[in-house]
């Protein structure tokens, strides 16, 4: 497929994939709790509804920031898929995440502020890994674009097993799944956070957040495919398995403190991903 077509596929099907994933997540979670759970398309109904609701705007800057959140999240994916520089895309991804933080922080209210500051911790915890991961992938393949890596004869996951393991750990943080759901939460109301980041967002504002999250999930799937660059189906299978593990962990743990999130994420990134990259030099690339 040409890059232009791939980009189109990502822009259109990315959210579909993300939404289906969220729906499957809710069904699997419900089954783990002995319930039936909602229909598979429930996330789409939810977002559809959110766009039909009125918005109660707390301040005028939140909404443009949220649109920026969606646009730059999609743009990060477009950059990755469409042949942009992979490492540069990681900086765009960080910018997208930052927009959400700012949208929450601009409410200047207790729960949103806690969510925003904690989401900054999430960013601080997860960002080094994504930069390192992309740098390592570019290093082992000698390429800098998606198609380059996919066509490379080098099997990325074989060269970077440590980074792959670390990926499994860090996406728990990136997907804001328990025990690392420190900044917001998908379930369990009545907590110290209320909804953290999204506490003061309503109607379509919340819809933008969900949409961006779907793009993010799709992008994470693309990252896994990068690891399994010799076989895209294997990569998608690996992503499904990884996501299944995330759901299991999500349903069987309680929230950790942010200190633990930060320390463990940095330790894992440094030891597994950093160590992996350094090890490549020791054995010689």
């Amino acid at each position, binding site marked *: 497929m040409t890059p232009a077509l791939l980009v189109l596929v990502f822009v259109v099907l990315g959210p579909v994939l993300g939404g289906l994933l969220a729906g499957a997540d809710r069904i699997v979670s419900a089954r783990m709790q002995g319930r039936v759970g909602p229909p598979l398309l429930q996330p789409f109904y939810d977002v559809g509804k959110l766009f039909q609701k009125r918005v109660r*705007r707390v301040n005028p*800057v939140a909404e443009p920031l949220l649109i920026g959140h969606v646009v730059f999240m999609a743009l990060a994916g477009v950059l990755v898929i469409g042949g942009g520089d992979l490492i540069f895309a990681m900086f*765009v991804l*960080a910018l997208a995440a930052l927009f959400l933080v700012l949208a929450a922080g601009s409410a*200047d*209210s207790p*729960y949103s502020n806690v969510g925003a500051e904690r989401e900054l*911790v999430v960013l601080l915890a997860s960002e080094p890994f994504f930069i390192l991961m992309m740098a390592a992938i570019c290093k082992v393949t000698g390429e800098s674009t998606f198609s380059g890596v996919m066509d490379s004869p080098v099997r990325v996951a074989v060269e970077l097993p440590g980074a792959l393991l670390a990926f499994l750990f860090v996406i728990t943080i990136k997907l804001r799944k328990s025990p690392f759901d420190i900044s917001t939460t998908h379930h369990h109301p009545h907590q110290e956070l209320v909804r953290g980041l999204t506490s003061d967002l309503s109607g379509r504002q919340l819809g933008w957040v969900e949409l961006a999250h779907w793009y993010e999930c799709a992008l994470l799937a693309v990252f896994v495919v990068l690891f399994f660059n010799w076989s895209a189906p294997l990569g998608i299978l690996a992503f499904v398995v990884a996501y299944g593990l995330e759901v299991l962990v999500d349903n069987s743990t309680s929230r950790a403190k942010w200190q633990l999130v930060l320390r463990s994420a940095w330790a894992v990134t440094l030891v597994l991903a950093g160590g992996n990259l350094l090890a490549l030099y020791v054995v010689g690339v």
Partner: protein
Amino acid sequence: MSWTVPVLVGLPTVVGAVLLVVRRAPLRNTLVVVASVLVTAASVAAVAVLADRAGDGGAFFGLPGGMTPGYAVLAMDVVLAGTIIGFGVAHRRWFAPLLALAQLGIAGYLELGHHLPHLEADRLFWVDNLSLIMILVIGVVGPLICVHALGYMRDYHRANPMVRGRRTVFFCLLFVFLGAMFGLVITNDLPLMHVFWEVTTLCSFLLIGYTRTTETIGYAFRALNMNMIGGLGFSLAILILAGQRSGVDLARLTAEPVGGLLLAAVALLALAGLTKSAQMPFSDWLIGAMYAPTPTSALLHSSTMVKAGVFLLLRLSPAMTGSTVGTLVAGIGLLTFLFVSAVAITEQNAKKILAYSTIGSLGLVTGCAGVGTAQAVWVGAMIVIFHALAKGLLFLVVGTLENRLHTKDVEYFDTLLSRMPRVSALALVGIAGMFIAPFGVVVAKWAAIRAFLEVPGWTGAAFVVIMAFGSSLTIFYWGKLLIKILSMRAVDPVERALESRVTRFEWVTETTLAVGVVAVTALLAVLSDHVVSPYAAAAFPSGDAAAGVDPVVVGVTLLAVVFLPILAVSAWRRGGFDQADFYAGGRSTRPDHAMGAALGATRSVTLRGYYLDDVVDGALLFRAGSLVCGLALVAMAVVGWVVAA
């Protein structure tokens, strides 16, 4: 083109001297504004004249009529050393005078003993694209800050009646400094460059101690001591080079990778660059320098003087590339970036946050200079440009806030968008320029990672790891500041009126800088193709093709350039929202964000940022970073000694 030197160096110096005797404020205002316009015009004219010939490896020229400085250099050394010794004796501080004596001794020995091989008269000055960049940075940002200072200093003295006004001296120093900076970036003759180098040190010392309290005098001497260590390194390098075939010609020294005694001299010059750029373990002085009036911090300690350090390092880059010295310099720079970025998270004082960020950015440039590839120095030069504009702007904005809010504590900058929307917009542009992808500095960070990936051996990987962690740390402290600025609540009319008291000098200069940040971002590709890439290619002719800018990156950049103003405009579009409508567990809330509490009481909501105290110990990290970088410096000394022996 030989006229450029007397104009660039002479004009600001003469203006400075005149300002020393101008005591009436209106006259001084007029004079400073006119002189600033002239200095900018002179720098632009000089660049226009030099641009053609500077492109390919640079142009060499001398003074008008083939004059040589002769003993003037030694005379200046005597004056400088005398001044430093005078201040040292007056305040009973002996370290700096000792170093000044040592430097004077070296200069005297070389000049009077005729051990110094003088440069040909037409090789005294050397201008290439890097110099042009520096000339424009100094010539555009410098005068703007001087004009800004007119408004700032008036309010500063109103707010601090205890401080004795010495504005004549203050403005004199700013302009003399500008002259010295111009001289520094175009000089090829190392002893002459050393004079300019020491003049900037002295200006910095005098400006930090402006208020003449015990505290600021202490910080002034700390800055002086550390910079004099670098200055002594510079002198020693000249001493070594005097006996070498290449002589004290910077262009010849840095034409290709060097070894032996030459490498030892390069290491000593690099030491001077590291001290001037406040790299660890010398970072302390720049933090102390934040006690100077804010325009000083903007001009000397962020936009220009500290850039002299990395300018020298970038100059030395082709000479030290591939050597252990180069790797150690890169390591010091990048570790400094990592450590100060972490320390900045724990800092609450806005000026100190900016100082740490400045040291970090300079650390990146240092890292790039040490790595020494075409791509790396491209990154270094890009950061120099963006940092000068964006950080200069941020310092000026903080200066404005400081005079209006009477605090430098970022916790009191919250809801700034509601209180001072125009100042907030300027701050947002500055912060965006510093770290929001895909503005300049982020493009540079990304390109730096790309460049470090090409470095052979494990050091390249280590540099990439440092970059990954360091740039995430910067997201945290900038993000925290952005939350403060962007948060909104209803404010009383008194607070809304704060903005109307910002002086015209401040508005004009800050807006100009903000426009500059956006323009440079929009013209990223042009800047790269016509200015920075030719410099990188000339500095590393044998290297790979100089880094260009990905068209995709340019596209994304333009999107952000369009997007952010839309954001700002929509922020001003009021109405349609209810500020009292935040969730507080069902309690009643008010537009000024007070909320109901138990027993009918009303409590105001105070929100604080995260400082990660449990995980990050700022003071400890600062010491640890200084120790690690100090060890690297010792290693550098050992390497220098071994190669020299």
